[in-house]
């Protein structure tokens, strides 16, 4: 595993996402209310591009006629068949034990620290004034 600088923080404001490629892997980086999460851009079902999925909430029900809505904006639906995944962990709703989208740790690092290394910043010019999104791959 190594840490890769993929974007400036201000490029991915809350509620948005960016598709990046790290060590040949397409990774969708999401900003959920200021926290960053990285998922492989490939649904485990048939390979749909997760970065183009809709973020929605979790709807659950104890019996017909009732429902609870929670976790608004934290459930990612594949843009092809609509399978639901927890954007924070990559776990599927349909079979959480077995089916997940591969997830990658993402952190925010200040330019001051990035400049010192050992971060990999092949495509992003780094300055000490900025904050950066760093993916661990």
């Amino acid at each position, binding site marked *: 595993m190594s840490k890769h600088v993929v974007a400036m923080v201000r490029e991915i404001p809350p509620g948005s996402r960016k598709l990046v490629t790290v060590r040949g892997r397409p990774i969708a980086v999401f900003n959920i209310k200021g926290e960053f999460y990285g998922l492989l851009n490939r649904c485990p079902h048939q390979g749909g591009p997760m970065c183009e999925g809709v973020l929605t909430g979790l709807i659950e029900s104890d019996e017909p006629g009732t429902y609870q809505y929670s976790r608004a904006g934290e459930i990612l639906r594949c843009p*092809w068949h609509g399978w639901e995944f927890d954007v924070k962990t990559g776990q599927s709703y349909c079979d959480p034990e077995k089916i997940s989208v591969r997830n990658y740790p993402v952190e925010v690092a200040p330019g001051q620290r990035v400049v010192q290394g050992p971060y990999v910043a092949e495509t992003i010019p780094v300055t000490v004034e900025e904050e950066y999104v760093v993916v661990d791959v």
Partner: protein
Amino acid sequence: MSQSLLDRPSVPGTRLGLIDCDVHHAMRSPRDLDPYLAQKWRDHLGTYGSRKPVPFTGTSPYFKSAPALSRKDTWPPNGGPPGSDLAFLQEQLLDRYGIECGMLHLLSMTGMDQRNQEFGAALCRAVNHWQHEVWTQKDRRLKAAIVVPGEDAAAAVQEIEYWAGNRDFAQVSMVTHTIEPLGRRRYWPIYEAAAAHDLPIGLHTSGFNGHAVTPTGWSSYYAEEHHEVAISQQALVTSLVCEGVLARLPSLRVVMVECGLAWVPSLCWRLDQHWKRMRDEVPHLDGPPSSYVKSQMWFTTQPMDEPERPADLSKILEWIGWDRILFATDYPHWDFDDPETAVKVKLTETQRRMIFRDNARAAYNL
């Protein structure tokens, strides 16, 4: 440690020249048909619009979370709905997957289930000209279906006669949710014309007839409806067989599109069982119902059934018959099957060639 389904071996090498038996092209607007419609019908379209045997024509039973029923990544960058831009369809489907031949099925503004019969016939003619000029003449990999107004057999036959012999058209298409079951004699002239011109009938689940899709009434949820189209297609297969359409026209070929697969063996078993006991009610059948299904019908894969144990799919496909199965993506629709990942079972080289290419060549006489 999570397990990804994609970590399992996928189906490699669709590069051998895949034939996709369900591709959806689309119009940017019904006005795309204007060049092919007489002024009277252009005016009619603008003044009265489409009139189908269904209430609430401004809506449909299909779900709204995938606009235009489509994958979210299939909206063309240059505008228009999914499937309306040839260049983008080539890039995202034909070139991307190395597709040798794509069978087009148009689902909207086809004229196939219009109540106004003359308008329906005019629309079908216009749609077929549009398919020919805008699609099949521009990319030889694409083959159209002659769309016909199924409830008006005379007009349907005229439409078949008009295009027969044009190799841009590989089949005849009509809606499947019809006023009567499709085996009834009012539809027979259409089958006779198709068989006479060596064209299969492609039956993509579609259309409105005012009845619920299920025989037990209207369902509440789209999750139900999406499955029930498969049940309606079972009734259709049963009708085509039991009414004697296939027995009477041994050269007729029928392709069932987008209605699932796993039900085919059990339907055949049950029909054969009934035939053994009640054969004298349907003496026009020379053999068990399954014999007609196994020699004159084909079934497209999408949406591919996904058994709990993926390997069980092999048994199902074997029961149906490896030679009966045609691969289809349903591009650009939301329940698209990816040629490289949808068939989650190991196939022999021969099986792979059959499903992805050779069966289609036989079914469509390509």
